[in-house]
């Protein structure tokens, strides 16, 4: 279940599927006929995780704490 964190915006839809008893990852490679797994979908999972959680949330919270530690660097010139 925690693996859902590795998905982004459509994770909630997959979660709803699971709650309804349909256990699938949705995307090709997880049981969909005629759609073979390709490594590009692994990239999708990694990218969604980076774009949804790591890059906006982690970096901006880091920037916030950095700005608090160096208030002189965020003053008007």
């Amino acid at each position: 279940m925690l693996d859902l964190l590795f998905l982004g915006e459509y994770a909630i839809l997959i979660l709803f599927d699971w709650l309804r008893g349909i256990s699938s990852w949705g995307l090709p490679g997880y049981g969909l006929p005629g759609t073979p797994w390709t490594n590009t979908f692994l990239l999708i999972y990694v990218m969604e995780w980076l774009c949804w959680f790591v890059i906006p949330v982690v970096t901006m919270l880091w920037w916030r704490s950095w700005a608090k530690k160096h208030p002189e660097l965020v003053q008007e010139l």
Partner: protein
Amino acid sequence: MPETGILIEAAIVVIWIVLILGVGVWARKRIKSSGDFMVGGRAIPVWMLGMWSAGAAVSAWAFFGLPGAIYAAGAFQHWALCLPMMAGFPITVLFLGRWMRIAAKKYNLMTMPDFLGEVYGGKLIRIFAAIGIVIACVFYATAQFKAIGILLSTILGVDYVTGAALGIAISVVYIILGGFIAGAIINALNVSMMIVASLIAVGIGYTWTGGYSNMLATIAQSTGGAAWLNQDLAMGGAAWYLWISWALFLSSFGLAGQPAIVQKLYGIKKPSTLWLWGLMGGIVFGITCPAYCYLGEVTKYLTVTGQAPNIIAVYKSADYVIAWLTVYKLGAEAPVIGGLLIAGVIAAAWSTIDGFVMMGGAAIARDIVNKCFRPNWTDKQLLRNLRIAMLIVGILMVIETMFPAELITWLAAIGWAQFAATLAPALLLSTTWKGITKWGGTAGVFVGLVVSAGLTFLYRIPLGTRVFLQRFYLDAGAWGFVLGLITIIVVSLITKKERGPLYYDIHKEVAAPQAPAAQTTTQ
């Protein structure tokens, strides 16, 4: 019921238009100077600007064009084009935002060419950047008025040109009246509408399709469905090149070069709150854009299960996917939600058009005429001329609606990639590399502008996207981005170390040259 539903949808859209124009009229009284007009007196709450920037990034292209493209060509476009834009907001804060904001008052920065001119020095870089902005503003707006034209003409029962002209005119009127202040308030409303509409749309789509997995499995089982779901097959083996071009260069780092999005940073009240702009921009974009991409997938499901017509065959264009879904499907089944969704798409188009009108007008009146040829204008003259220039840009956009749709689509290809290629390399290097010089920056902006425009022409006319990508490996804009970046580095290494005054504030370790007057005094 469908006719009653469409009337309900039309009523919601008309109420929304009246509300937006009312805010424009109200904000007019609060404009006292060009600074109020262009950057809201640098006193706008960061959350409002985060919403505005996210709305400008989403634009009608993502709400309208992208679902159509996904319906026509495959789901991969969502992950290649839409998702990386989420990263563009924090990337902009990390590399550029702090300097843009904390230097804004000292150097009276209002536009992107302002920033480039103060860092690199010289007039030419301002002029090249301003020309790139005017071209991209006028032509990228195409996607917006196509969306507005199609939706308003469908829902109000007028022809496409009238619908498009009406939609643009509303945006031009409120932004000329109320400037940045009106834009910030209206877009906070617009984006709130977009978020609500997006969340409802996803819920409805889920119930229509019987679940996410069922939707994709059903599409996969249809003729051509496997290719539609597999990016390699969907792009005929060229998907990786498109992916690298957009995910790595244009959607993510390229966002730093989008004036309609990034120029909002000048208006933030407190520089220390920039992080919230980056976070809000990314998350709001991440909620809204994928939701409309999902609607493209839902419509595909409805088509393959016989619940929707083949949109491309019936309307001769995939651009009608969202129009069909909102006006005919939701108009019959849930008109209030359909009306909200339509208002959401129009709001997204306005978020971008008002930004383009401001950028285009400022590029003409301030960056070219005022900064390079008429530096003695009073603030009152500047404010008046900004409004006149914005009116000219607005009229140009309205005239563009008269061109045939095919030509407009072709011209729109210059859009986002053109902005990214022209401005992003010079902006990103200005804060991260101390070796930049005036001529390096000027040459880089010029190369980005020319390469992106030239290759766009080549791939749109004789080759087509897939053949172009297989032959040249990267998208036209990505080539402009990469070559612009290389040009700045190479030319900077071999030219005289001349820079603008802001450069020495950013790179404090580099000693500023003494002013000639000071040298004369010491001698």
